[in-house]
């Protein structure tokens, strides 16, 4: 296995007056898949491009294993990269595209074509070797791009939103395939995406970024259940923001006193952050505390969106069974099923 670990230390990068990365630190272990997730402009792509050597850094250090590669040009970094789309060389056949990295490394023709065939089998396109790239679908092109990035056994694999140009079904299949390949080859991988479902579903750890800073990096479970900041809480998954009063460390939501877990110095008027699955909707015989706005059937579960009498929109996620009665306009009682709640400034 040729994979190594990757460390970014205090990396900063500014474009004019905009700070794309601000003292950014990241460590990706050998064979680990880390996703960088964040809204557009948060610096995730800049971070990836700095790792690849396609962007220079103002200060800080990028290291692969023990070696500082901050000043090493892109073509000598031995990293495979898959781009958003249209990155295949249109003048080459599929197998020549895959073998390109080996050709640049002066590997003999028969060896590189053999390796190319192996990779095409790995990505499920063994019979497409002689085709030109414009004869492939978007999903097939990205598979070839992945094969090309892996053919020369890179130390690090970089994925720059490789699925964002594809259809929904192809996206899901291909992301599973990327994960399967990544695990079987043990390649250290950094995956940039703005799609949280994508990031959460295939990564060992997810780093949530905002304004050039890594807000939190953790396993998907921890990120979802124990967000370190209000930004992470809001960005990852659906989050209800319910205005409330904080007094004596407690918050009263729908008649229940919950222990407030503060991330800062919140006090007085705050918003309570509650996941939809922690809110239970019950049919009310009288006025209740809210009215149903819509109910979306999602299969095993249903999302019920309600409005409280104070005007707050609250989303609940419940098992679909017995939610059929929640027609729009139905008076309901909302209840919280947890005892602790994260709060943020209102």
């Amino acid at each position, binding site marked *: 296995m040729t994979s190594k670990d990757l460390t970014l230390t205090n990396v900063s990068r500014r474009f004019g007056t905009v700070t794309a990365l601000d003292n950014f630190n990241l460590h990706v272990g050998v064979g680990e898949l880390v996703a960088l997730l964040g809204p557009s402009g948060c610096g995730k792509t800049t971070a990836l491009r700095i790792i690849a050597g396609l962007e220079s850094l103002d200060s800080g250090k990028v290291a692969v294993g023990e070696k500082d590669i901050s000043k090493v040009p892109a*073509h000598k970094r031995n990293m495979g990269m898959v*781009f958003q789309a249209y990155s295949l060389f*249109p*003048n080459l056949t599929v197998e020549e595209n895959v073998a*390109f990295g080996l050709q640049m490394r002066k590997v003999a023709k028969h060896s590189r074509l053999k390796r190319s065939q192996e990779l095409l089998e790995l990505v499920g396109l063994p019979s497409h070797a002689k085709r030109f790239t414009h004869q492939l679908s978007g999903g097939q092109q990205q598979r070839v791009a992945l094969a090309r990035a892996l053919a020369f056994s890179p130390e690090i694999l970089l994925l720059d939103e490789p699925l964002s140009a594809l259809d929904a079904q192809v996206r899901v299949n291909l992301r599973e395939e990327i994960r399967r390949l990544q695990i079987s080859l043990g390649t250290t991988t950094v995956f940039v995406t703005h799609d949280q479902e994508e990031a959460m579903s295939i990564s060992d750890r997810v780093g949530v970024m905002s304004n050039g800073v890594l807000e939190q990096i953790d396993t998907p479970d921890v990120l979802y259940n124990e967000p370190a900041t209000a930004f992470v809480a809001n960005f990852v998954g659906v989050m209800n923001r319910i205005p409330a009063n904080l007094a004596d460390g407690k918050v009263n939501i729908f008649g229940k006193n919950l222990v407030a877990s503060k991330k800062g110095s919140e006090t007085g008027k705050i918003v309570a952050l509650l996941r939809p699955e922690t809110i239970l909707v019950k049919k009310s015989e009288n006025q209740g505390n809210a009215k149903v706005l819509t109910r979306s059937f999602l299969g095993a579960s249903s999302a019920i969106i309600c409005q409280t009498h104070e005007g707050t929109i609250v989303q609940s996620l419940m098992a679909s069974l017995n939610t059929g009665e929640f027609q729009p306009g139905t008076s309901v009682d909302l209840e919280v099923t947890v005892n602790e709640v994260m709060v943020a400034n209102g």
Partner: protein
Amino acid sequence: MKKRLDLPLLTTLGALSFFVFVPMLSAFEYSIRTPLEGGYGLTHYKWAVDNEDFFHYILRSGWLSALTVLITLIILVPTVTWLHLSDSKLRPLIDALSLLPLVIPVVAFAVGAQISFPEFVQNTVLELPFLYFVLALPYAYRALDIGLNSIPLKTITEAARSTGASWVRTIISVIIPVIRGAVMATVALTFALSIGEYTLTVLLHWDTFPTWVTYVAQENILGAIAISMMSLVIPFVLLTSITLLTPDRSAQRRK
């Protein structure tokens, strides 16, 4: 079903025939006349080929033009690629500057070269390819500019770089093959312009094929026409063979 005649196409072909092919065919007809014996024959072509200067000058113009093409590609492909990749603010300025050779009179250009170039440059015929390069710049620059505009240059370049290609390899192995059409157009335009260049060459006191033809015309006008006919064919054959020898491998793209 009978296909409708394409009027604009017919008009274009008609105009082209009238202004290009008719004069050329007339010149050809004229060049194969044998006034002394009457009728037609290849006398003047034989006279031209037997003239030892014919090959001397056609070869000289040939290699000077080939060198011009090489200089153009070596200088322009990396430069225009860099302009596209860097999103430079200089690009509109360079766009405009590249047009200057069209508006500067060749006489002024030649005089300027004679005044400013050091003697050792003026003493070698190798000054011509560099000057031809400048004359061909407006066309060559635009051909490459359009070619690079039509491809996802940034992604392809970055893909090549991250796959292990140095800048030189990226340009030679990826960019040039991908914009093959634009490169071929640049080669054709530059070659044609260089091989036919007359004014600048004469003003700088050099002899190439076109200047030799005008010299020959003074003693044998029919022979000069025969030579000109051949000089039309040679670049045409050369450019066609270059195009055929470097086939567009993904030509099936058009649906």
